């Protein structure tokens, strides 16, 4: 590594990835394989998962149990399944990746939702022998709702079907058909063997019929992530900074992470819900004041007028306000042990705001096989997906989830257990 390389490592972009798919389809094995092939794992970590005791040097991936590299809990290694998300990291000269390895087991769907919620790209693994299963569909439907920008279907274990192109083609067309039903038309499909490494970081020589990119090439060249800076400016206020020190007796700064858009000194801004307006005086950071800031920077804004702004309020540009309502309709993934029922009450956490809410109606439950809407549902049980309408104690300012992941998402919190029981995406 040279001076130039140091500079590049600092400046490369971050890409958040997630692996999903049915139980045993090879997600953890794939991540192990990526870590080994990109040198993202250290030798002592590899030795800890060697197959034969006494091995002191790992010469090839065949000598280790790839899935165990990410299955970090003893219970997972005992049962040979993934229970909770593991976050692993690797970098190539082009990008740094944060990889969330999700469990495939239906019981742990909530952990899959956890891992997928922040992803820019998802790899959906399918065991070539089994094809598209119920859990493949559930995960794919959830990815669709979460609006993950890039979906990659990896038909895995090709070694177990003689690397047969027809098997791959069949699964690809099944997935395309399922995805088209929910409006996802942009799918990348590739065959691979996570265990042997074919089409992961290297092509191998067993699937010459496949002419597309390997998985790693695909990941390195996915189109840029940007775009949120060109959306309307939104900054949910996390805290009001009032140092009240001798040097700064009257300072009031509004601290937050810019959810979308760009803000400049002098911009006219409005605080919702109060509707008070002012102009931006300074954009304060520890490294000096900025003329301009953009999503997803964390900054502090001071304003030219003494207006009332507190945690839970949102700053936007005048004339570019978010929607506001006391009634919200949203897609939800239900991840609580107790089912969601009509008229039950929850706390909704939306940006930096927490409000009480009541389920006004369960509009429908989605059949994950057919994607049909079942309109007579009276509850959503754990791992079920549907659309609900909520009545709020006070209005929220929001955007639709497809327009803005941050101002369009919320979690539902059970008021008795304090657990996070629902993931909501505002329509």
């Amino acid at each position: 590594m040279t001076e130039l390389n140091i500079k590049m490592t600092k400046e490369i972009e971050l890409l958040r990835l997630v692996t999903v798919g049915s139980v045993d389809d090879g997600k953890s094995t794939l991540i192990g394989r990526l870590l080994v092939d990109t040198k993202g794992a250290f030798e002592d970590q590899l030795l800890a998962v060697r197959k034969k005791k006494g091995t002191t040097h790992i010469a090839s991936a065949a000598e280790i149990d790839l899935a165990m590299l990410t299955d970090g809990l003893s219970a997972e290694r005992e049962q040979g399944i993934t229970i909770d998300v593991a976050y692993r990291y690797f970098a190539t000269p082009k990008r740094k990746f944060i990889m969330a390895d999700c469990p495939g087991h239906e019981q742990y769907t909530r952990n899959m939702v956890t891992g997928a919620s922040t992803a820019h790209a998802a790899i959906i693994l399918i065991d070539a022998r089994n094809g598209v299963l119920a859990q493949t569909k559930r995960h794919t439907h959830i990815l669709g709702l979460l609006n993950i920008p890039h979906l990659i279907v990896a038909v895995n274990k090709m070694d177990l079907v003689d690397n047969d192109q027809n098997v791959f083609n069949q699964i690809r067309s099944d997935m395309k058909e399922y995805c088209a039903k929910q409006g996802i038309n942009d799918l990348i499909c590739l065959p691979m063997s996570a265990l042997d490494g074919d089409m992961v970081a290297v092509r191998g020589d067993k699937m010459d019929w496949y002419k597309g990119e390997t998985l790693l090439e695909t990941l390195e060249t996915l189109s840029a992530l940007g775009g949120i800076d060109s959306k309307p400016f939104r900054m949910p206020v996390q805290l009001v900074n009032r140092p009240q020190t001798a040097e700064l007796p009257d300072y009031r700064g509004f601290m937050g992470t810019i959810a979308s858009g760009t803000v400049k000194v002098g911009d006219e801004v409005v605080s919702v819900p109060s509707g008070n307006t002012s102009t931006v005086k300074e954009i304060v950071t520890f490294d000096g004041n900025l003329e301009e800031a953009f999503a997803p920077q964390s900054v502090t804004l001071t304003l030219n007028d003494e207006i009332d702004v507190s945690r839970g309020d949102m700053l936007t540009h005048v004339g570019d306000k978010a929607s506001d309502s006391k009634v919200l309709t949203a897609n939800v993934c239900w991840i609580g042990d107790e089912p969601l029922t009509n008229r039950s009450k929850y706390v909704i956490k939306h940006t930096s705001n927490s409000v009480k809410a009541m389920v006004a109606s369960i509009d429908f439950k989605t059949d994950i096989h057919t994607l049909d809407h079942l309109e007579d549902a009276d509850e959503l049980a754990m791992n079920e997906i549907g659309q609900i309408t909520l009545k709020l104690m006070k209005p929220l300012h929001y955007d639709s989830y497809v327009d803005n992941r941050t101002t369009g998402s919320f979690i539902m919190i059970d008021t008795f257990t304090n657990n996070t029981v629902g993931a909501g995406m505002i329509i």
Partner: protein
Amino acid sequence: MSEQKISEHRLTQLKALEAESIHIMREVVAEFRNPVMLYSVGKDSSVMLHLARKAFYPAPLPFSLLHVDTGYKFKEMYEFRDNYCKEVGADLIVKRNEDAIAKGVNPKEHGVARCCGALKTKGLLDALEEGEYDAAFGGARRDEERSRAKERVFSLRDEFGQWDPKDQRPELWSLYNGKIHDGESVRVFPISNWTEMDVWLYIREENIPIVPLYFAKERLMVERKNFLIPYYEETKDQLLEGEEPKMIMSRFRTLGCGPCTGAVHSDATNMDEIVIEAAAARRSERETRIIDHGSNSMEDKKKEGYF
């Protein structure tokens, strides 16, 4: 560079990580009654503290730093801790398990697991209980160890400070659920998504002061198996039979307690060289920590409340 980057509106990966960490810290201060930051004097703590100063600037830190001391830290660490905390105006609280220290608990006689359990885990749990903290920031990173890779950013602890890895709260988007019952608390890991490499790059980029032991120097060391153990006059009775201290060009990749942390052979005397060395490293930094050896130990310790 910064001119051009800003006009493109694209954050580099380090700046994206920084923004995420600041967001997490602000959420904790907004939602918890009495947070504290665990400060271990190591490089990760240095980065975490630096990020906290950025998060709340121009206000002073809205929480204290808590150092759970074992009495076995390197003397350079104590010196650095006291000077640096004074320099940045941080309120430092030092807590020790005085009972165990008075009893002379040590790794050689009592074993590493019992020594750590008493001085670190119990020391920490007692200090958190005494201070009535409901949130404690820690500088652990998910890339350190495979059970850490499983932990949430907001990690819920029961009234005994224990972690239940099989039943963690879902954690979606950047919406952290800060609701807890009386007696429960959270450990919060704002630099979860940073790798060792990111930490070194950031220290270099931001000129963050770190304990001089991280830089290579000729030091008096004892070679024990794969480890380099620093030799001090005060601890010469800890030498094993046949061991001879000698001057070795070396540095630390991670800092823990004197008797249980090894150094590595190195010529890296400045940050550029450290970054280059980190990029070429074939073994993980935790390998120089004796506590991590033996099957599954980190997960078990974490369940009991270890940091």
